[in-house]
C-alpha cells in the first residue's frame, strides 16, 4: 500500500532555499534531464503516455497524447507554453510549486521540449504574483548559466530558449487559446478550434500548452519510470498530485497524495473543520466545478468518481465552506467573478453573467421575485454549452449546482436577506462586526465599472 501522502513535487519544499539550482541539483535535480537527453524524443513521449499522466490544468487530458499530436512534418518551429496563469478560484498549487522549486518546472520544460522538438518555450505566469516571477526568472538565468538552456544543451545538441512572460490580470488567459493570444500581445480572448494549438498555436505554429504541475511531473516520471508512477493512484487516474485544501478548515494547505484520496482524509490531515463547525458544501476542483456536499466526503478524488458525482476533479482545489455560509452569497460572489472575468467575446457569457448577477443580487437582498429561481436555471441553460469557451460553463455550474443542493436558500431570498439568515460576520475567520455595506453590498458594480 502506498502512503497517504507521497511528496514528489513538494518533497524539497521544506529544504533550505530549494529554489536555488545548487540545492535542487544536490537532491538529484537535472539527473532526469541527462537521462532524457539520452533517450529518443519519441521514447520520452511514449514513456509519458504509458505512465498515463493526465493534464493537471483542469481537463485531465493525457499529456503524452497531447505531445504526440504535434505534427512532425510541419515546417514551422514548435513551441511549448507552460500555463502558469493559475487563476481559477480555489486553485493554489502551481504558485507554491514555482515559488519553492522553480527548477522542477524548468527541468520538466527542457525534457518536454526535447520530446516534442521545441526550441523556444515560454512560461506564461499570471502577473499578480511578483515573487513567483522573480523565482522563475532567476531559475531560468541559473539554468542558462549551468548549460541546461541555450545552445547545445549538455553537449547533446538540443537548443532551447526559455522565456518567462508575466500576464497582466485576466482569468480567461488560463484558457489555453486565450493564453496564446495574450502571449502574442493581444487581448486574451479564446480562439476558434480547430485548428487546435497542436497544429496552429503560438504564431500559428504547432504548440503544446501544458499546466505547470503536468510539466513538473515529468522529471520524476523519467527518473523513476512509468511503473512507479502507475503504482500510485486509482484504476484509471494514475500518479500523485497536489490537492489544495482551503476554507473553513483548521489547517488549510497543500497535500501531495496519490490520486483518489478523499476529502474526509484531507480534512482530517488539516485538523478538521474549524472548531464547532461542520462542512456544508465544497468544490472538488475550483469554482468552475459543480459544488458538492458533505455526503460526497468519502468519494475518491479522482477523475472518474468526481464525474460520477456530477462534478469534475478540475484542479483539485477543495474549497470547504461550513454551515455559517450563505450559498446565495457564495453563488453571487462566484458569478460576479465570472462576470468580471468574462472576456466579452461571446454573447451568452457577456450578457448572461451580467443578468445572472442582477438576479442573484436581489435574491441576496431578500428581494427576489417569484420565478427568479426558474429564470436563473433557464438563463443558465441558455448560457452553458452555448458559449464560445468553458468559462461560462463554469459560471453556470456554480448556479445550477447551488440551486440543486440548496434550493430553499434561494427561495428564502424572495423574502429575507441572506445576511439575516446567515450573518456574514459568522463566516469570517476572525471576530467581526456585521458588515456595514452588507445591505447595499455591491461588489459587482465596483468590479465592473472601474479599472
Amino acid at each position: 500500500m502506498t502512503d497517504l501522502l507521497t511528496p514528489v513535487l513538494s518533497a524539497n519544499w521544506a529544504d533550505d532555499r530549494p529554489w536555488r539550482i545548487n540545492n535542487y541539483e544536490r537532491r538529484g535535480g537535472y539527473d532526469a534531464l541527462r537521462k532524457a537527453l539520452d533517450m529518443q524524443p519519441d521514447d520520452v513521449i511514449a514513456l509519458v503516455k504509458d505512465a498515463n499522466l493526465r493534464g493537471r490544468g483542469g481537463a485531465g487530458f493525457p499529456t503524452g497524447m497531447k505531445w504526440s499530436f504535434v505534427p512532425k512534418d510541419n515546417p514551422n518551429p514548435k513551441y511549448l507554453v507552460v500555463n502558469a496563469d493559475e487563476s481559477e478560484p480555489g486553485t493554489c498549487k502551481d504558485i507554491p510549486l514555482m515559488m519553492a522549486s522553480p527548477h522542477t518546472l524548468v527541468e520538466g520544460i527542457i525534457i518536454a521540449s526535447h520530446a516534442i522538438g521545441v526550441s523556444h518555450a515560454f512560461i506564461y505566469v499570471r502577473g499578480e504574483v511578483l515573487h513567483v516571477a522573480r523565482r522563475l526568472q532567476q531559475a531560468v538565468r541559473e539554468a542558462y548559466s549551468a548549460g541546461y538552456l541555450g545552445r547545445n544543451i549538455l553537449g547533446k545538441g538540443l537548443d532551447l530558449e526559455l522565456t518567462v512572460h508575466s500576464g497582466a490580470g485576466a482569468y480567461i488567459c488560463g484558457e489555453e487559446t486565450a493564453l496564446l493570444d495574450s502571449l502574442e500581445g493581444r487581448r486574451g480572448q479564446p480562439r476558434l478550434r480547430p485548428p487546435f494549438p497542436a497544429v496552429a498555436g503560438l504564431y500559428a505554429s504547432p504548440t503544446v500548452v501544458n499546466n505547470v504541475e503536468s510539466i513538473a511531473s515529468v522529471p520524476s516520471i523519467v527518473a523513476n519510470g512509468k511503473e512507479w508512477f502507475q503504482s500510485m493512484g486509482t484504476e484509471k487516474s494514475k500518479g500523485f498530485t497536489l490537492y489544495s485544501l482551503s476554507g473553513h478548515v483548521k489547517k488549510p494547505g497543500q497535500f501531495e497524495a496519490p490520486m483518489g484520496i478523499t476529502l474526509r482524509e484531507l480534512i482530517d490531515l488539516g485538523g478538521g473543520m474549524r472548531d464547532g463547525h461542520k462542512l456544508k458544501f465544497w468544490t472538488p476542483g475550483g469554482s468552475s466545478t459543480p459544488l458538492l456536499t458533505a455526503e460526497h466526503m468519502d468519494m475518491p478524488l479522482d477523475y472518474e468518481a468526481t464525474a460520477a458525482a456530477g462534478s469534475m476533479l478540475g484542479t483539485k482545489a477543495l474549497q470547504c465552506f461550513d454551515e455559517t455560509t450563505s450559498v446565495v452569497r457564495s453563488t453571487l460572489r462566484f458569478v460576479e467573478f465570472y462576470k468580471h472575468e468574462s472576456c466579452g467575446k461571446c454573447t451568452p457569457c457577456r450578457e448572461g453573467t451580467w443578468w445572472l448577477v442582477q438576479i442573484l443580487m436581489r435574491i441576496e437582498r431578500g428581494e427576489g421575485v417569484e420565478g427568479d429561481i426558474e429564470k436563473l436555471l433557464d438563463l443558465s441553460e441558455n448560457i452553458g454549452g452555448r458559449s464560445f469557451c468553458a468559462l461560462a460553463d463554469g459560471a453556470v455550474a456554480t448556479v445550477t449546482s447551488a440551486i440543486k443542493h440548496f434550493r430553499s436558500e434561494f427561495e428564502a431570498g424572495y423574502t429575507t436577506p441572506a445576511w439575516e439568515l446567515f450573518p456574514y460576520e459568522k463566516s469570517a475567520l476572525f471576530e467581526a462586526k456585521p458588515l456595514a455595506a452588507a445591505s447595499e453590498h455591491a461588489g459587482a458594480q465596483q468590479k465592473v465599472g472601474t479599472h
Partner: protein
Amino acid sequence: MTVEKDEKKGQTQPPADQARPPEELVTFSIDDIETSVPKGTLVIRAAEELGIDIPRFCDHPLLDPAGACRQCMVDVVDDGRGRQMPKPQTSCTLTAMPGMKVRTQYTSPVAEKAQRGMIEFLLINHPLDCPICDKGGECPLQNQAMSTGDGESRYEGEKRTYPKPINISSQVLLDRERCILCARCTRFSEQIAGDPFIALAERGALQQVAIYEKEPFESYFSGNTIQICPVGALTSSAYRFRSRPFDLVSTHTTCENCASGCDLRVDHRRGTVMRRMAGNDPEVNEEWNCDRGRFGFVSGRGDDRITTPLVRRGDELLPASWPEAIDAAVAGLQKAGKDVGVLTGGRLTVEDAYAYSRFARVGLGTNNIDFRARAHSAEETDFLANAVAGTGLGVTYAELERAKHVVLVGFEPEDESPIVFLRLRKAMRKKGLKVTTIAPFLSRGSQKLNATLVSAVPGGEPQALASVDLDGDTVVLVGERAAEIPGLLTMVLDTTGRSGARMAWIPRRAGERGAVEAGCLPHLLPGGRPLSDPAARVDAQAVWGADVPARVGLDATGMFNAVLAGELGALVVAGVEPEDFPKPRIALEALEEAGFVLSLEARESSVTARADVVLPISLLEERSGTFIDWEGRERPVHNVIPKKHVMTDGRALAALTDALGAPAAPRTVSAAKAEFDEFGPWSGNRAAEPRVAGSTAIEVGPGEAVLSTWRDLLDDSRCLDGEDALLGTAQRPVVAMGPTMAADAPEGALVEVSRGQRSVTLPLKIVENMASGCVWLPAHARGHNLSTELEATAGDLVRLDMIEPEASEGDGPEGAASVSTEGTK
C-alpha cells in the same frame, strides 16, 4: 467588339499548373435535406444554398469566422460518426462532414431555444431606438428580434448605457449602446483593409469598439464597416438621419472614381442620391468599395453646375440656346479648319470616348486626340497601342488572387486602385501571394501588402525592374505613372516578354481604359487599330462611311505646344482639369491662346473661363453607358436619376457632326455602343513596342533631392468637392524623407521644397526606408497641387530647406537651414 469574356471558359490561358483538380464533395443533411458541398464548406453556407435561413450576426462570408455572437446555433444530431454532439454548435464555424445530420431551428427545439435565448441576451442591453436609427427598417437585429425573439422582455434590470454617438473619424460615428459586439467592423479593418484603427477595447460586459483617441479611424475603406454593421452602431456623418430605407430607390451602377470597376448600389430619393453602397460582384469588388467611391458623389450639387449652353460675346460668356451654341461652335471650329485638337480626359464612358474618337476623325478630320490629362509620353502612346489597346479581358482580379508573385511598377494600389489593393491583400493573407514593389519607399499600402521593396529613386525604376526575378506565375502591374519615367514601359514589355510574366496596366481614372479602346489617342483607331495600318483605316472607313486622316496626330502636350506655336487653331475639351497636367501653366496658356475653345462640361472650371462655346453635359448619374475597368471588363453604368432631357457628350457631338455636315453619328448611348462593337477586335499586326532607353541617374547635390510623388486616394480632385467629412479622413500632406536626410529635424518640422522660384512648405515625415537622395510629397493634396505650386513631377530635382520654427510664420529663406542629403554619384 466585346472585351468581356467569360473568364471561367479559360480564354486567358491559365498556366497549366493552375488547372484545378475536381472538387471533393461532402454529402450531409440539414433538416433532413441531403446536400453535397465542396469539402471545407461551413454549414451556414450550405444552408444558404438550400434556402434554409439561419439567423446570424457576426458571420460574414468574406471575414474569417469568429463564432462570437452565437446566434447561428444548430443541433448536430449526428456528427457523421454516429454520435450526437452534446452541445448545439455555431453553424458559421462548423465544417460540413460526410454523413453529418444537422437540425436548425426549423426542426430542432434545442436549436430553436438556443437562438431565442441568444437574441434575448443581445436585446437586454440594446436601446430600443429603432424609430430614430438609420438602420431601422434594414436592421438584421430588428428583423431577428421580430422573427426569433419573444414578444415580451424578461429582463427587468438596467441597461448598459454610454454617452451618445461619438465620432471615430470625421466620417464615421459610433453608437456603443447599439453595438452587439459582433466584431465585423474590427475584423474588416484588420483582415480586409489592414487598418486596425478600430479595435475592441475593455472586456466583458464593458467590451466596446474603440479608437485610440489620438488616432482616428482614417482608413480608405472605413465605409464598408458601416455597411456590414448588423445594427445601427456605425453610421456616417453624410447619411445620418437623412432618410429611411423604405423611401429609397436603389439602382446598381459602376463607380466612376477609379478604374477598379466597382459595382455600386446607389440609393436616391426624389431625384437626389442619398447614399452609395458597395454592390456585390464576386468577380470584381466582392462586397467592398472604397470611401471615395462610397461617399464622393455630391460634387455636382454645387452652384457651379452649368445648366445652359454658353457662348462668348466679347469678354463675356452668355447663356444661349442649344441651336445658337451649336452654330457658334461649328463656326469656330470651321474657322480653325483642320487644325483642331481634342482633349477627352479620363472620365468618359466608352460610348462617349468613342463619340470623341469618331468626331475627331469624321467631324474634324484630325487625329489630334488624347485622353491623357496627366503626365504622358510618346513611349506610353506606343506602349498602349502595343500592349493594351484591343487586348480584351486580360489579367483579372481572380488571376491576381491566383498569382504567386505580383510586381508593382509605378503603381500604388491603395491610392490608385483601391479594390486591386484589397484583392492583393486578400491573396497575400489567404494564398501567400508575394508582392514586390518598385518604389522609393514602402508606402503605407505596400506595408499592408507585406511587400518587398526594390528601392528605386524616380528614374531608376527600369534598372530596378530588370533586377527582379519574373516568371510565368508573376503578374506585373504597371500604373499610369510609369509614363513619367523614360524607358520604364519599354523595360516592362522587355522583361515580361522575356520571362512569360503577365502584365496589366492600371490607370487611375475610370474612363482611361475605355478611351484607349475607343481610340482617343493620336495614332490609334477603335479596337486597338494602329492608324498606320491601311487595313485599320479601311475598317474605320467601313464603319464610319468617311475617310480617316492618315497623318498621326498630336498628343496633349503636342497640342499645347502647337497652339502656343500658332500651329493649332482650336481645342475641343471634354471636362478636363488643366490643373491635372504636369504643367498646368502651359495648359492654361494654350487654352488662353487657342483661337477657339469648345468645352463640353458639367461644372464650371478653369476651361470654362477660357472657352468660346460651352455645352452643358449631364452628370454621370443622369445617364447610362459603359466603363471598361483595368481588367478590360465592361462594367455597366446605369441611369440612377431619371431625367427627361439628358445631354451626353455623344449626343452633343452628334449634333455638331450634323451641323458640320459630316456623315451622321450615333445619337444614343446604345447606338454608339453598337457601332463601337462593330469594330470588333483587331486581328492585324499590333503596333510596334516602344524602344526607349532609360535615363541616367541625375546628380543630387547637397540640399537637393529627387522628387517622388503620386496622388493620394483622397486628394484635391474636383469629384470630392463638398465632401468635408470624407476629406477630413484624408492623409495630411507631408514631406517624406529618410532619417539621414532629415538629419536631426523632428517629425512635423516644416520643410520648404523648392524648384526655381517656386516652393511649397509642409511638415516633415520621416520614412525609415526612403531611397537615398529621394523625397516624397503628395501630388494633389487638398490645397497643395504640386504641378501648380512647383511645376514638378516625379524625377525632378528639388531643393530642400528646413524652416526654423521662428521663421515659419512667413519669410522662409532667411530662417532656412540646409537639409543634409547623401547625394548620389
